[in-house]
């Protein structure tokens, strides 16, 4: 069992589902049912296997574990995968959310259901692949390839402006990523390998660090997205089908934060230190600006999209605080935002399936017709606000504490974001759930079905469980976070000492 390549299995298992789907028909109702069942079983098995990875992961070690390395392209580029404290939880998050994506598509996708699920499962492979890659080229391949299924998911199964949204999404992110590719080429030309552990140990010259940092920054900032690179996100979210929005908000956005933690901080510490004020400023602008914009939205999905921008602002801010609290907060906030934003999009999907409108003004009085839904939505609303007892509180609190130790003013302005998020979320809740129905679309609504119970309850349990008992996540990432923080400050200290000695 110890020799079994468990990580490759988790990564590529959905391809088995894809193969089965290729031989399934989806032109009848039974066929579609089969498509969904195959996809659901595949994603659930993948999730269970990822739990095995988590269980087998030794949190006391900061090293890569369950490493697999095979010959791939030669010349220092190999198929090299493994997990460490940074990535193990993201693998679990990715596989955890996928079954909900299948469940929410069960009735919503009627056209080309098979192709939809194929794209969806391929996307799962690519997302998990990003988090387990230990080779930069492999990382880039997974990172960039995820654009293809997402482009098709938005473009084929999306809303009225899907074409504009999918094109913008693709070209915007591609334009950002090519700079990272130049960066990767420069690093390869310098070091002669793209193995991440080797690159982590390599000391790049300060000047080189600045350029490489900027190259990687452009790519990750678009992906996070940081203000002012965020404009693709609301469009993509609004037009994407529910499962697409879930993947986008919960997982694809995390590539950016993960990239900062994996590459920018450890590989370019001097540049990170140099650019920290800029990033803190951009993060604070993102938090306040995106929250204000969210306040004025009339489309539910757009509001949640802007709320995502604001919440990711906490993440980038906390990452560049570079202390234990900040990094723990950033990782936890990313995981928690993954669950909560995913859950919010799923909740929107549940009512959208019934009413086919996302206009907040059309809603009202849902509590009378869908009381169970109102309860579930309440919990996620509160979680998004960051109420103590939910996982978001832990993340935001730690993130703010981490930043407070570095810059009091940043923390001060960031905290206003919490107030603003309470404003827009509670206002949204009041307008949707309370009052009277304002549109004939609200007639004859039925409360959530068994399938939808299966979607919301596990997410509620996770949100509250990790809000009360976050230790499992911290245990997994503690050693890795310690090492990143120690190495980062050591690198900066070394340069400061050298400068002093020179004087």
């Amino acid at each position, binding site marked *: 069992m110890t020799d079994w390549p468990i990580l490759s299995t988790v990564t590529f298992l959905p391809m088995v589902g894809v193969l089965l789907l290729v031989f399934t028909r989806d032109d009848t109702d039974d066929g579609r049912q089969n498509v969904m069942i195959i996809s659901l079983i595949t994603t659930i098995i993948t999730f269970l296997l990822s739990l095995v990875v988590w269980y087998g992961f030794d949190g006391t070690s900061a090293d890569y574990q369950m490493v697999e390395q095979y*010959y*791939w*392209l*030669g*010349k220092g580029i190999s198929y090299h995968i493994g997990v460490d404290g940074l990535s193990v939880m993201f693998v679990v998050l990715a596989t955890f959310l996928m079954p909900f994506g299948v469940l929410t598509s069960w009735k919503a996708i009627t056209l*080309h259901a098979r*192709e939809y699920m194929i794209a969806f499962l391929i996307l799962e492979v690519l997302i998990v692949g990003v988090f387990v890659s230990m080779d930069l*080229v492999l990382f*880039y*391949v*997974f990172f*960039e*390839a995820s*654009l*293809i299924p997402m*482009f*098709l998911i938005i*473009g*084929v199964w999306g809303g009225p402006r*899907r*074409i504009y949204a*999918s*094109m913008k999404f*693709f*070209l915007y992110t*591609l*334009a950002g990523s*090519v*700079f990272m*590719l*130049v960066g990767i*080429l*420069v690093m*390869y*030309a310098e070091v002669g390998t793209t193995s991440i552990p080797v690159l982590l140990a390599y000391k790049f010259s300060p000047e080189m660090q600045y350029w490489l940092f900027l190259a990687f920054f452009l790519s990750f900032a678009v992906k996070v997205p940081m203000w002012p690179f965020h404009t693709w996100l609301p469009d993509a979210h609004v037009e994407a089908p529910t499962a697409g929005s879930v993947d986008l908000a919960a997982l694809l956005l995390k590539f950016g934060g993960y990239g900062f933690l994996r590459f920018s901080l450890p590989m370019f510490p001097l540049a990170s230190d140099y650019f920290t004020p800029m990033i803190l400023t951009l993060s604070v602008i993102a938090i306040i600006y995106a929250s204000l914009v969210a306040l004025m939205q009339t489309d539910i999905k757009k509001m949640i999209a802007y709320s995502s921008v604001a919440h990711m602002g906490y993440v980038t801010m906390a990452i560049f605080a570079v202390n234990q609290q900040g990094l723990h907060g950033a990782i936890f906030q990313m995981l928690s935002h993954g669950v909560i934003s995913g859950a919010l999009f799923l909740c929107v999907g549940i009512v959208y399936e019934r009413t086919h409108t996302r206009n907040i003004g059309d809603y009202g009085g849902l509590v009378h017709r869908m009381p169970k839904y109102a309860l579930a939505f309440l919990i996620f609303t509160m979680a998004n606000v960051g109420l103590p007892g939910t996982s978001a509180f832990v993340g935001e609190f730690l993130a703010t504490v981490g930043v407070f130790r570095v810059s009091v003013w940043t923390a001060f302005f960031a905290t206003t974001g919490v107030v603003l998020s309470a404003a827009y979320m509670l206002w949204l809740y009041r307008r949707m759930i309370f009052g009277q129905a304002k549109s004939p679309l609200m007639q004859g609504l039925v409360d959530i079905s068994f399938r939808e119970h299966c979607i919301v309850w596990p997410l509620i349990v996770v949100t509250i469980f990790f809000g009360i008992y976050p230790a499992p996540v911290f245990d997994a990432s503690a050693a890795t976070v310690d090492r990143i923080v120690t190495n980062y400050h050591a690198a900066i200290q070394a340069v400061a000492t050298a400068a002093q000695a020179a004087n």
Partner: protein
Amino acid sequence: MTPELLSQSLQFALPEIILAVGALVLLMMGVFIGEKANQLISGLSIALLAVVGLLITVSTGNGEAFGGAFIVDPFARFMKVAAIAGSIFALAMSAVQGKAMQLDKIEYPVLLVISTLGMLLLISANDLIAFYLGLELMSLALYVVAAFNRDSLRSTEAGLKYFVLGALSSGMLLYGMSLVYGFTGNTGFQEIATVLSSETRGLGLVFGMVFMLAGACFKISAVPFHMWTPDVYEGAPTPVTAFFAAGPKIAAMAILIRLTSETFLPIIADWRQIIVFVAIASMALGSFAAVGQKNIKRLMAYSSIGHMGFALVGLSAGSESGVSGVALYMLIYMMMSFGTFACIMSMRRPDGTYVEEIDELAGLFARKPFMAVVLTAQMFSMAGIPPLAGFFAKYYVFLAAVEAGLFTLAVVGFLMSVVAAYYYLRIVKLMWFDEPKGEFERTPGELRFIFGISGLLITTYILYGGPIGSAADAAARSFF
């Protein structure tokens, strides 16, 4: 020449000799059996090319033949196999639908074989005269096949245009050669290189080199020598266009590599600025001009101009990894382009007429899912999106540029690839997101097989990329 040297020379040139004799035998067969032998000759031509390709793959000896005019090295083998593969696929395509395209004449396959022979000689040329002979043998056959559909105004226009401009470029090439010969006193590539490295280069020699590069750039259709490409691509019958896109470009790129990386390597500073300019101009024109195209064959013409620009990025490095990257780029470009043209050939109305408007692809995914998936993979691959083959092609050429310190070139190139991604995405968008327009005829199984192979090759490159990359590296070591 002593008998031993002669027999050794013949041994090195054995694949080319087999091909030449085979082409003549096929021609004779065609003359004696008549028009009904058409299918047979097509099949035999493919078999002949396959045998020669196999022979080249398994052969191992390296050396020079015919007094240094002909060279066999790993680089020549790599490029020859790529060129032959491109020719085989183009021939197979025309065999499938030759009748509908008025290509069912016995001369057609024979001309393609002769043109392929010209490519092989060009790739192995090690001497100015051998270079010119190989190039002309290849091109003369190409002029004829471009105008092969002689009842079509567009096809004859394409042939004439190609011929006139081709003749002009040959003139420039010859003029350049004469200058180079005049200033170095040698026609052999190595001898010229030796002279160049031992003495300071004269201005006249640089003139000669510029003219020679212009002639070669014309054949790979790099800007500013690209004007013929869109018209010829559009006018020539589709299988002929598919043929143009693969073999001749590989052969011309091979000689360009040999010229820059061997003959003129001592004066790299002189040619590098030219290649960098041509690369940037080609990438920019290929990317921007393709955006407005409505005809898919014209679009492919601009796309090929852009691709040649990307390949030249690797060449401008003037290093081992650069040559390896360009060789790999040409191979992968060949894999992508024959599949795309096979898809274009499948755009046929039920009444038998071929359509070339890009808009006709609307809703293809709903009507022909397999073809749509393959064409989507081609488009993403051409745009350079991983995990498809096109990404790795771009990766290695840009890596070479970065290693050589050409950062601006790399950044400009990547930005151009984003612009180019737009028009590839537009095709994907049409196929997947739009409502179906007209009906297409059922695609013949052979054609599906051909683009299926191409789709398989570019999607699974990620699995077999290692050995291919090592082969390209071994090829590049021929020079450095």
